[in-house]
């Protein structure tokens, strides 16, 4: 496998980075990078870490080209090399991450998630209103990994705050079974794009086909998170198998309406990406344009109410007078 960290990767331009992942040789992971400057979304760090841990778990080799870019210290500080047990040949004085970033974390169980939410998220030093969607997103995405990914490695998480744009960018990745495999038993999606589309549709869960879900799953988590990005007019992406779905920034002059079918959102998607064994999610949240979390909940409630009414109407038979 070959991964090249280019000059710049954000959700907006992540397509090319994903397309350039070469997974033909699973015996070795080769990591190389742009020689001058590398600036990447946290989701990229999560992906490289997930790949590396998977290779380490299989006792495969990781070949790492020592970074030359002047931004290399960022990768050291985020913990990439430590996680992959690679010698970066860098020694840095680690500053307190308060307010700026959450370094790469591996979360394997519920207790570790509780601790992460208690210890790490307050490091971002945001007020309650801003913390609310961040911990919500991380909790829901990481619990999805525990419940559906079938991954022994757990969930890899990291986040970065960008002061200039006042945006927090969050990545979560796993090297589990992937969304299509999770949904195969009940929905048998024809390809990864259909699987992603189902996973983002409210009410679809891999655990049951009953309306309202099972006792512990409603199939609403990803819909909530995508809706948060939509209401906030931010990017959201999900990548699993050969499929990648990206919610594009909702145009500012367009009213935000929540719809059940994710393919009807302002989005792009494709089903010919290099196969990713597992699931990757990335999201941006601009904090100054941050729509109130409470307003999002109002929209979601209205959405469900409308769905309930239309479903009940569908089943309601009127007498036909001729």
């Amino acid at each position, binding site marked *: 496998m070959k991964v090249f960290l280019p000059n710049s990767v954000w959700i907006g331009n992540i397509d090319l980075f994903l397309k350039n992942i070469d997974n033909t040789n699973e015996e070795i992971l080769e990591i190389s990078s742009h020689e001058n400057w590398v600036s990447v979304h946290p989701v990229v760090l999560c992906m490289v870490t997930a790949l590396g841990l998977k290779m380490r778990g299989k006792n495969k080799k990781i070949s790492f080209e020592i970074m030359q870019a002047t931004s290399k210290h960022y990768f050291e500080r985020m913990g990439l090399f430590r996680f992959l047990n690679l010698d970066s040949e860098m020694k840095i004085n680690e500053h307190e991450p308060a307010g700026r970033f959450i370094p790469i974390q591996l979360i394997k169980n519920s207790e570790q998630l509780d601790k992460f939410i208690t210890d790490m998220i307050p490091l971002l030093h945001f007020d*309650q209103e801003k913390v609310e969607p961040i911990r919500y997103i991380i909790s829901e995405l990481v*619990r999805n990994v525990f419940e559906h990914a079938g991954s022994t490695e757990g969930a890899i998480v990291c986040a970065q705050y960008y002061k200039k744009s006042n945006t927090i960018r969050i990545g979560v990745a796993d090297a589990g079974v992937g969304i299509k495999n999770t949904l195969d038993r009940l929905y048998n999606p024809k390809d990864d794009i259909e699987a992603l589309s189902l996973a983002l549709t409210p009410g679809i869960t891999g655990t049951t086909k009953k309306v309202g879900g099972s006792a*512990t799953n409603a199939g*609403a988590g990803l819909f909530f998170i995508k809706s948060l990005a939509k209401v906030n007019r931010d990017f959201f992406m999900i990548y699993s198998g050969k499929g990648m779905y990206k919610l594009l920034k909702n145009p500012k002059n367009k009213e935000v309406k929540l719809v059940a079918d994710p393919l009807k959102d302002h989005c792009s998607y494709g089903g010919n990406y290099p196969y990713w064994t597992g699931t990757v999610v990335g999201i941006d949240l601009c904090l100054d344009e941050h729509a109130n979390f409470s307003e999002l*909940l109002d929209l979601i409630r209205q959405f469900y109410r409308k769905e*309930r009414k239309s479903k009940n109407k569908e089943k309601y038979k009127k007498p036909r007078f001729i």
Partner: protein
Amino acid sequence: MKLIKIYEKTGSFAENKDIARDIRVKEILPCLDENEVLLDFEKVESATQSFIHALISDIIRKKGINILDRLYFKNCNDTVKKIISIVTEYMQQQD
């Protein structure tokens, strides 16, 4: 009436579904046939939809929606109220 203080079990962010399931199975369900149950969310700042779903959806499914006449929610802030309302909303969709 049985009182269950959520904060004592979850802290200020109620997101752990294992805890929600335990409260539902061990404390709410055994009581509801005989008693009313009061879920007190005092000091809970926020909850996830997954937590509230794991807490009450199976009760609604098993006992019917009228069980909400005997299951009370106290000291909920706006966020928690809205998430509970969302869960009760979609649990009333018909199969």
